[in-house]
């Protein structure tokens, strides 16, 4: 087994952990919150921060899909 295989396996494991936590966070009476819960709670009362975060989101999309 090469390092490349190990690295891919580790990334796959981490991706699976993301899926498991995402499922747990939407399950009824689950103790796990959604991943964006603290950020959304903060943005609810900080307009400038929301604008900054949305601009960062726009930059990420532009960088990923256009340039």
């Amino acid at each position: 087994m090469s390092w490349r295989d190990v690295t891919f396996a580790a990334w796959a494991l981490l991706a699976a952990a993301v899926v498991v936590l995402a499922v747990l966070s939407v399950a009824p009476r689950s103790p796990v919150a959604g991943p964006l819960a603290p950020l959304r709670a903060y943005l609810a009362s900080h307009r400038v921060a929301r604008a900054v975060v949305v601009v960062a989101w726009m930059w990420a999309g532009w960088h990923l899909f256009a340039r």
Partner: protein
Amino acid sequence: MPGPHRRPAARTALVAPVVAAALAYAWLLAGTRPFTPAADALAAVGLAAGVAGLTLRLVAARPAPAGPEAGGPRDASPPAGRSRTVLPWVALLAVVVAWELFCYVAGPRVAHPTLSSLSDLAARYQWLKALMVLAWLWLGWELVRP
């Protein structure tokens, strides 16, 4: 009391067309190549949607009224009697960052692919790139939704 139920019903009716539009948009954007006019134009549509969503959100935002009936962000309100934690997410993020850093410094990239090299690999397949676009759209929605 029909009043309070009208708006959720209208929102529910919008879900299908919005999801269909998002799927079509993701497929079209995933079919473009970066550094082309088509990619620029289609990505700009997503950015325009982000600007529109942010503008609507900021215009609609009002100071949260005090009181137990005021409500708040949906994710921020824990179920009665229980507190919800983000600690598992924080721990997972720490592991991802640590592994990303290890891959970044370990090299060579072909043996230790980083997240960006994984996204480059995924972008070769239109359906995988479309999933990335959908994830980006979902994140944008989460940032501007009420």
